């Protein structure tokens, strides 16, 4: 667990951030220049704050009269550029900081065939897996990841993401995951801290922050949208649809996704939800969920953020002001949320 309260001035930019990161994956999300990297470097000790405190599992790393050097902080750090040592083999890179759980980590990250290679002979995705393994073998108290996938193309991203999901689900160390890509955050994070111009503007469990209508202007209309977690219940061979069960109800998605019983997390962008006043009689969309409106938030633009309760789960929709007026919606109304099955992008489906 990390408790953090730091201030740092860098030219015109001021970082003034406070948050607690519990076990699990805490994503720090923000636009470029919002101070994400400054924040994570302060945790690693690569940058000294002007004031504040940083504590890791109750141990003060930075505070009045205390500034533990990076080497003694026991943090693992995966950089955007992998920073593998070019003069060492993959195996030597991996054990540079220790060989804690060597066999298990090599197995978990699929590194066995790479051990004798040189970093220059690796693809971008392989480099990041090695960097991840190297950080893990130093047995860190917290794993810091600074945009680890940002330098990779989408195919390489899709190659590395499942390893990070596995790490999260198999009792890895707590992670601080810096990113400006909502699809990564939605798939990996358990907690979300939204940073804007050096300040924390939202923080809390991922589902709560993402489903909160006030988050929409902070995340941007394209990135806003709730994440729901459910399980695979079946696969229809004839229709080639996977059936999923969520607190919000049943959802079908095209294609074969996971095994029966497997946990699935699904991000539903707010702009992909259509609201209907009554249950549609014939409609091509596969997924129609009865929901209750919990909040309406008008922004400065033409859109309105609509908070929805679907069973135990919460969703977020974005509709136009004109639709709001014509449908005469208000908080507490029972409506139907329509999700087009093919609108869900593969990158928004995770474990």
């Amino acid at each position, binding site marked *: 667990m990390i408790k953090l309260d730091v201030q740092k001035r860098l030219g015109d930019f001021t970082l003034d951030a406070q948050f607690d990161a519990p076990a699990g994956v805490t994503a720090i999300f923000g636009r470029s220049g919002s101070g994400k990297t400054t924040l994570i470097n302060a945790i*690693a000790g690569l940058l000294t704050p002007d004031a504040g405190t940083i504590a890791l599992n109750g141990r003060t790393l930075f505070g009045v009269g205390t500034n533990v050097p990076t080497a003694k902080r026991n*943090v693992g*750090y995966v*950089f955007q550029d992998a*920073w593998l040592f070019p003069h060492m083999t993959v195996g030597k890179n991996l054990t540079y900081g220790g060989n804690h759980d060597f066999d298990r980590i090599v197995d978990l990250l699929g590194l066995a065939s790479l051990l004798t290679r040189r970093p220059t002979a690796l693809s971008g995705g392989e480099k990041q897996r090695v960097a991840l393994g190297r950080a893990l073998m130093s047995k860190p108290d917290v794993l*810091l990841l600074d945009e680890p996938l940002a330098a990779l193309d989408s195919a390489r991203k899709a190659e590395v993401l499942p390893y990070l999901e596995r790490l999260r689900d198999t009792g890895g160390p707590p992670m601080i995951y810096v990113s400006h890509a909502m699809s990564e955050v939605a798939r990996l994070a358990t907690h979300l801290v939204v940073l804007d111009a050096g300040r924390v503007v939202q923080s809390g469990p991922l589902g709560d922050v993402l489903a909160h209508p006030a988050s929409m202007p902070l995340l941007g209309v394209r990135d806003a949208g709730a994440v729901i977690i459910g399980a695979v219940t079946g696969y229809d061979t004839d229709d080639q649809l996977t059936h999923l069960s969520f607190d919000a109800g049943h959802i079908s998605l095209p294609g074969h996704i996971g095994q029966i019983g497997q946990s699935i997390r699904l991000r539903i962008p707010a702009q992909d939800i259509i609201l209907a006043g009554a249950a549609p009689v014939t409609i091509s969309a596969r997924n129609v969920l009865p929901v209750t409106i919990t909040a309406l938030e008008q922004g400065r633009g033409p859109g309105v953020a609509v908070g929805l309760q679907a069973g135990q789960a919460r969703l977020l929709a974005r509709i136009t002001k004109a639709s709001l007026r014509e449908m005469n919606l208000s908080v507490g109304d029972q409506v139907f949320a329509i999700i087009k099955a093919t609108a869900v992008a593969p990158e928004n489906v995770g474990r």
Partner: protein
Amino acid sequence: MIWTPVFLSLQVSLIATICALPLAIWVARVLAHGTSRWHSVLNGFVHLPLVLPPVVTGYLLLVVFGRQGTVGAVLYDLFGVTLAFRWTGAALAAGIMGFPLMVRVIRLGFEAVDPGLEAAAQTLGASRARVFRTVTLPLVAPAIVAGSVLGFAKALGEFGATITFVAAIPGQTETIPSAIYAALQVPGQEGAVVTLVCISIALAMGALIGSEWLARRVVAR
């Protein structure tokens, strides 16, 4: 004996390079990472022998390291060491003249090491000393080899500062360049001149080829 100045030159240049190397590595590292006014002053001081007339450097060495010089007197009184007009003085002059070249090349090597690699090593628990030994130094090694060879070659060819500081006493301080110069002053010594010139070229070529080979070995490791 034609080989006497050759062996003396090799001895002087080798000792000069070996003694100057640790200091050159340290100064190169300091200069690579600093931008303050003191770094500019240090940078200028290190490069002085490169731009001063060598005879001026030789004269300054006499003033400072001569028997009556500020440092020279102390060295003689405390340790009985004399540099002026000795082969050790030739090594000092050669080392000082080669030093700026060594620093320049090694400094480029340090500047080419990305600080991200050192930061990564620190996050893996490595102390500053271990980061330097296991990450920085191996990556700078080719530049150190190249800088050493350049410094060695410069030391082999040093003439002005050497002849001013230690003169050209046959068998004691007469290096290859001094020997060539002396032979040129005497009619009928053309054969010795040609031999020494050929040896000079062979040594220079050998040093360059050797450094290429060494650098490749270092990188491949």
